[in-house]
């Protein structure tokens, strides 16, 4: 077996693998994920707890991956945590808006009924 002939191939594979991973720590993605989770927490706590929990778990895993230096993995988790948190916020906001829509509609209906009672 000619060992030296294999070396360039192995080097090529190693390079390809290296290209798969991001070498720099994904600070921007981590920051965005943290910010979005913070923004979602107050509203989603009540109205989208599942979505929020998922975002928080992913953020925690991203933080752990950062600690271990698994930056590519951390980047992926951070991006997903951000998307999850944004979904959590959107779901909660939707619930909130629908609630106040129902309230306004109820009030209007009550008002109209009162008017009709008075008007007769």
């Amino acid at each position, binding site marked *: *077996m*000619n060992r030296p*002939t*294999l070396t360039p*191939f*192995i080097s090529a*594979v190693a390079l390809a*693998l290296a290209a*798969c991973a991001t070498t720099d720590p994904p600070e921007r993605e981590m920051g965005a994920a943290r910010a979005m989770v913070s923004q979602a927490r107050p509203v989603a706590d009540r109205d989208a707890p599942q979505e929020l929990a998922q975002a928080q778990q992913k953020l925690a895993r991203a933080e752990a991956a950062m600690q271990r230096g698994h930056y590519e993995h951390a980047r*992926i988790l951070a*991006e*997903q945590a951000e*998307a*999850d948190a*944004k*979904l959590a916020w*959107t*779901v909660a*906001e*939707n619930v909130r*808006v*629908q609630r*106040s*829509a129902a309230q*306004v*509609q109820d*009030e*209007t209906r009550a*008002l*109209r009924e009162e*008017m009709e009672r*008075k*008007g007769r």
Partner: protein
Amino acid sequence: MRFNPKLTVLASLVASCLVTSGCAFSPHASQQLDDARAAYRSAAADPAVQASAPAELKSAQDALQEAERMAEKGGPSELVEHNAYLAEQRSRIALRTAEIRRSEASIAAAGEERRRVQLEAREREAAAAREQAEQAQMQVRQAEMARKEAESRAAMLEHERLEKERLGTAQAELGAEVKRLESELADMRAKQTDRGWILTLKNELLFDAGGASLKPGAQRALDNLAQFLTKYPDRDIAIEGFTDSTGSKDLNQQLSEKRAWSVKAALVARGIQSTRIDARGYGPSFPVASNETPTGRQLNRRVEIVIDPS
């Protein structure tokens, strides 16, 4: 073709490397890609999403395209799955955002409806208040009208009462005065009729037979009459001359007229306004007694002073 051991080693190395690094296109990634496609399709198909969450929809599309591109060229399974996941979540975010906009629109509509209802209510209340005020005003006006009517009726009744009283007093006074006139002159008779008081003077007292000149003896009666008329300046009188039926009717007519005019002239001479006195003669008409007897004829020869009753 001969099997190259070098290539075999390389292939196994690459394979093991791909498996360990997760770069293979796994069934898990394939499933995620399907989910992402479905989520994106339903979001993109909703016109409300296109209208109210275009940025989110675009970012979902970008992620999905990235996932598709990587899957096509056999990119790392982990990244395919990751981008597909992002595409799915962003699609869901876009859908929810559109729902939020819809709810906000319905809040705005309900708010508008509420304002409309409130406005309607205020208008209705205002109309009711206006109507109430108008009714109250009308009642006040009606009460005022009734009060005024009652007042004017009371005033009218009072006026009538006073007038009656005044007239009664005046009539009584007049009657008394006429009676006094009558008592002062033996040949004057007074009686109350529908036409008012009528004083009757015998012709013998005033005139010579056949003449229209007043006798001196008539002066006292005329003075009294003038005094009476001065005392009652509002009362007009009529002087009516009459004869008996003896002789020519025409002559009698003329004589009665002349005598009435003489009396009027005498009263005017005593300061009585001529317009207050209507003098006319009736000859033998309207006899008060029979012309067959001397007494009757004497009664028919007369001058009547009619005192206007008003």
